[in-house]
């Protein structure tokens, strides 16, 4: 076995530990599952090649997100899509992911998400259903109109309300606040 192969195997452990986190982060930026997959893949490859430049191993998750963000912006730009480059938005996303970065003795990243899961479960039925179809089943707003037999504006409104409700809930549960 050569050293490079060993390094890739060790990197695989990091990939397994951070894959879900990174996909969630990128989905928040690009809002497109297919594109998010491509971005995550490219970010992991770049991450491996630049790993020697990472000085603090504790900062790996945040460092990986930075790489993914650059890749995501580049991909969005190529596709002429809106880039959420506002500093406040990026800092807000980082606020949430930083909470989940706290090491908890090898606990899988997914296991730390009970708070957000509870927030989702607390949504009123109508909002939860539209969320499920959109986020979990990747249905477009137009497809949801057919499934639920409601108008496009109603679907968009419900998604908006669900999104705000989950954000407000997470804000309280994760004790998110702006650093001023």
């Amino acid at each position, binding site marked *: 076995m050569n050293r490079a192969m060993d390094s890739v195997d060790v990197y695989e452990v990091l990939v397994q530990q951070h*894959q879900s986190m990174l996909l969630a982060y990128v989905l928040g930026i690009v809002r497109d599952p297919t594109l998010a997959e491509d971005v995550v893949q490219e970010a992991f490859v770049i991450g491996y090649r630049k790993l020697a430049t990472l000085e603090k191993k504790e900062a790996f998750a945040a460092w990986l997100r930075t790489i993914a963000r650059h890749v995501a912006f580049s991909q969005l730009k190529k596709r002429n899509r809106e880039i959420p480059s506002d500093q*406040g938005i990026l800092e807000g996303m980082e606020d949430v992911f930083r909470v989940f970065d706290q090491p908890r003795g090898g606990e899988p990243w997914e296991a730390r998400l009970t708070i957000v899961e509870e927030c989702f479960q607390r949504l009123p039925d109508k909002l939860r259903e539209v969320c499920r179809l959109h986020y979990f089943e990747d249905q477009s707003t137009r497809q949801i109109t057919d499934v639920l037999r409601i108008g496009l504006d109603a679907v968009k409104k419900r998604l908006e309300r669900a999104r705000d409700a989950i954000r407000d809930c997470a804000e309280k549960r994760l004790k998110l606040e702006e650093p001023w």
Partner: protein
Amino acid sequence: MADNQTPSSPSRREGWARACEGLLASHFGRRTSPAGAKALAQLRAADQPNSVRLSDREGTTPLGAANLIRFPQGVGSENESGRSDRGANWTWLALAACCALIAVGVLFLAVPPLDAWQASLSIQGTDVVVERGSQNFAAATGFRLRAGDTIQVPRGAAATIRFRRESTQIDLAESSALKLMAAGNRRRLELHRGRIEVVAAPQPPAHPLVFVTPEAEARVIGTHFFLAARQTSTWLAVIDGTVELARPADKTAIKVGPRHYAVAAPGLELAAQPEHQRWQTPYYLARPGKSG
């Protein structure tokens, strides 16, 4: 908090909402992403003559044994000793010889000498060598091992260490090198390279079996596990029981329970992880141990 101090507030909250959206879509959508696997396949496929390391440490020391093992001189030690002093006269030599004889006698009575392992080898294949001091022995099944022996298993062969007084069994895979050390009742094994499978009989808690690799130290009281020492990393997969894995470099230690694994490597947090699907084979340990 005046608004003029927080112009980014709405956008920050937009960021919180986007993060929640991402979490919902990825986690609660039970999305199984192939992105990581694809990235790894891409990395593995790439020809990388200038290998990227997880550490800027240049090369690995053969074992760093000086940091990991502190054994009394003379027990399992390969240090050259007993050089004659040119100026010594016969009286001194005789006195020294008497002292040496007494010391050897005391050592023999106090410590089960050289045979503390009470172990022998079973060999599959050919060319398994046992290094004993400066001598090399071609090992055959039944070869009795001593403290200080290093078992070298070449590619295509395998060896099993069996103990006379306990049911502990250690299987050495091909391309492995394992050194047996003992001091009194304490037994240590240095896995220089390759991989081993260990089924350890219950050990006295005060005298666990200790396995040492370049990156880590595993203390075993009675369990079944795999241990692999690779170029820059040590992999431990526990099938049954619990193994304490310590990393002397940063003085961290964790307990790895059944169906969990841990990897000790520069730049990687030492943590027990639930068994990965690929470990069921177990994938990593099935790889060839080392080349050179």
